[in-house]
């Protein structure tokens, strides 16, 4: 390995950091992604320069590189924006697999690839980390993909004595890891570690319900980063160590944001305890809402919007399910053309992964100035004439502020009821993921429009044009 390779890897890391820095504004973000891609290209060139004499099997390199690029490009242009969470799960499972496979290759060829200055125990120890983290990420992501794609049930599937089984598996990994360090050529221990990691990945992810997928996705990103860093330690590749660490940090931050937005314990999640607390019974819902809900019509909503100056839209996942983004944009155009202020207040968990709702709205060409965070949204709701809640429920539930006995108590919400009037478009009074009734729906200033979001918005647009 030449020093020039080390220097080029350093340039890669600097370009990655610069790229992430540019990602802090939607104006420069696309450039940032490009800068980061240039960094990646430099790392690949540096690898060819540094290992040129070692590389003999050019057929494999060409086949892997060309086929991989073709499949990657094909996937990137085919994927529907609603399916991004599944796409990320695939990327993540692939990342985990790369780490596990290359880690296995490293130990099979220890004599050739172990850095001279690294001790055997450090080398084998890092291979164990590659195999362990990589396999958990791989199996966990495959299960997450299957759940998001609804190939298997979205409900949590919890094995009896789940936590005890996990602890036993972890202890066994440590035991076999120790034995492998003592006998690096007895690969049976390595295979056992693979199997145990696969079991752990399966057990932890199966126990997670569909609604908690944003947390799992975020957590799996930090695993991808950690496995890259572990692989860096195997080969003492400083470039990999730094990039893995960067990505690991990004995953941890997103997990913390998601955990806070969903009212889950961050440390509990890190330790694989993502199962939500026991849900309250919902049998009292009918009595709760009885006689207190005011139903409205599209014409009335159009009238309210006509006389409003500031409108804050609160979109939830129901919007994406109904595929009503285009109708929402049409209404947005209609309202802004008349000089009204229209904003979208987007809760951190509105969608199936961090920031998903923003992408869905950007896709239908809502300008990014109109996309507001939770805090900005709450400020705008103060003094808004109409809050239009589309397909959202728990994220606007005032119980999160008022009732310490509910499972969502303490969760940050969008305070829709601060607006002069609230319009809720929802198919029925069925509870959200948290399984509790929502007192917003019976407030004096709230009216409900019971319909599918797409049909309701279409009817409102038509009624508005008639006015």
């Amino acid at each position, binding site marked *: 390995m030449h020093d020039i390779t080390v220097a080029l890897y350093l340039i890669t890391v600097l370009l990655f950091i610069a790229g992430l820095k540019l990602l802090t504004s939607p104006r420069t973000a696309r450039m940032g992604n490009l800068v980061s891609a240039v960094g990646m290209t430099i790392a690949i060139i540096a690898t060819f320069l540094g290992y040129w004499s070692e590389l003999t099997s050019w057929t494999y390199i060409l086949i892997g590189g060309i086929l991989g690029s073709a499949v990657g490009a094909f996937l990137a242009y085919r994927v529907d924006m609603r399916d991004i969470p599944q796409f*990320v799960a695939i990327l993540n499972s692939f990342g985990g697999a790369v780490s596990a496979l290359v880690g296995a290759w490293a130990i099979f060829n220890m004599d050739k690839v172990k850095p001279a200055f690294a001790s055997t125990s450090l080398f084998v120890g890092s291979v164990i980390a590659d195999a362990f983290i990589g396999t958990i990420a791989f199996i966990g992501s495959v299960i997450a993909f299957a759940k998001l794609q609804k190939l298997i049930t979205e409900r949590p599937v919890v094995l009896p004595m789940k936590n005890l089984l996990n602890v036993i598996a972890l202890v066994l990994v440590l035991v076999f890891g120790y034995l492998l360090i003592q006998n690096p050529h007895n690969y049976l221990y390595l295979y056992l570690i693979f199997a145990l990691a696969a079991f752990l990945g399966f057990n932890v992810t199966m126990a997670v319900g569909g609604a908690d997928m944003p947390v799992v996705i975020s957590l799996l990103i930090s695993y991808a980063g950690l496995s890259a860093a572990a692989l860096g330690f195997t080969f003492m590749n400083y*470039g990999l160590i730094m990039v893995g660490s960067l990505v690991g940090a990004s995953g941890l*931050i997103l997990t913390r944001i998601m955990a806070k937005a969903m009212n889950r314990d961050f440390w509990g999640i890190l330790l694989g305890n993502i199962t939500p607390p026991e849900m309250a019974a919902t049998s009292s819902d009918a009595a709760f809402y009885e006689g207190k809900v005011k139903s409205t019509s599209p014409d009335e909503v159009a009238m309210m919007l006509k006389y409003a100056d500031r409108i804050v839209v609160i979109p939830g996942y129901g919007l994406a399910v109904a595929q009503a983004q285009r109708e929402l944009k049409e209404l947005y155009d209609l309202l802004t053309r008349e000089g009204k202020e229209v904003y979208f207040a987007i809760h951190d968990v509105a969608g199936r992964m961090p*920031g998903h709702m*923003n992408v869905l709205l950007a896709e239908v060409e809502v300008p990014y100035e109109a996309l507001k965070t939770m805090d900005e949204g709450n400020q705008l709701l103060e003094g808004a004439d109409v809050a239009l809640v589309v397909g959202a429920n728990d994220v606007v539930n005032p119980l999160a502020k008022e009732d310490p006995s509910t499972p969502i108590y303490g969760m940050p919400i969008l305070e829709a009821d601060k607006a002069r009037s609230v319009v809720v478009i929802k198919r029925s009074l069925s509870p959200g993921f948290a399984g509790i009734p929502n007192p917003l729906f019976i407030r004096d200033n709230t009216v409900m429009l019971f319909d599918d979001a797409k049909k309701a918005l279409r009817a409102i647009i038509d009624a508005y044009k008639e006015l």
Partner: protein
Amino acid sequence: MNLMPLIASSGAGLDPILTAVVLFVLALIIGFEVITKVPPMLHTPLVVASHAMASIMVVEAIRAAGHGSLLGLIALFIGTVNVVGGYLIADRMLAMFKKDKKKEK
């Protein structure tokens, strides 16, 4: 990766393993600093771009494949899918975030 000649010539005699640990921690701190500043609006593109970056693991897969290992070939294939797919999809998404045209006028 061997930084030894570089370090030796500077006379600093740094332990390469310690160097690796220091770099890991420094990058973690930089990561926290930079990424907390990414607005929630861009979190999905950030996730996809992060995945593409983490797939820098392909550089070791290139080596494994270059040694004629089948494991390496598979790793290189899926790693390349990640790199190319990740960057292209992030680009496709970021291209969708547009300024308000009406206000520009």
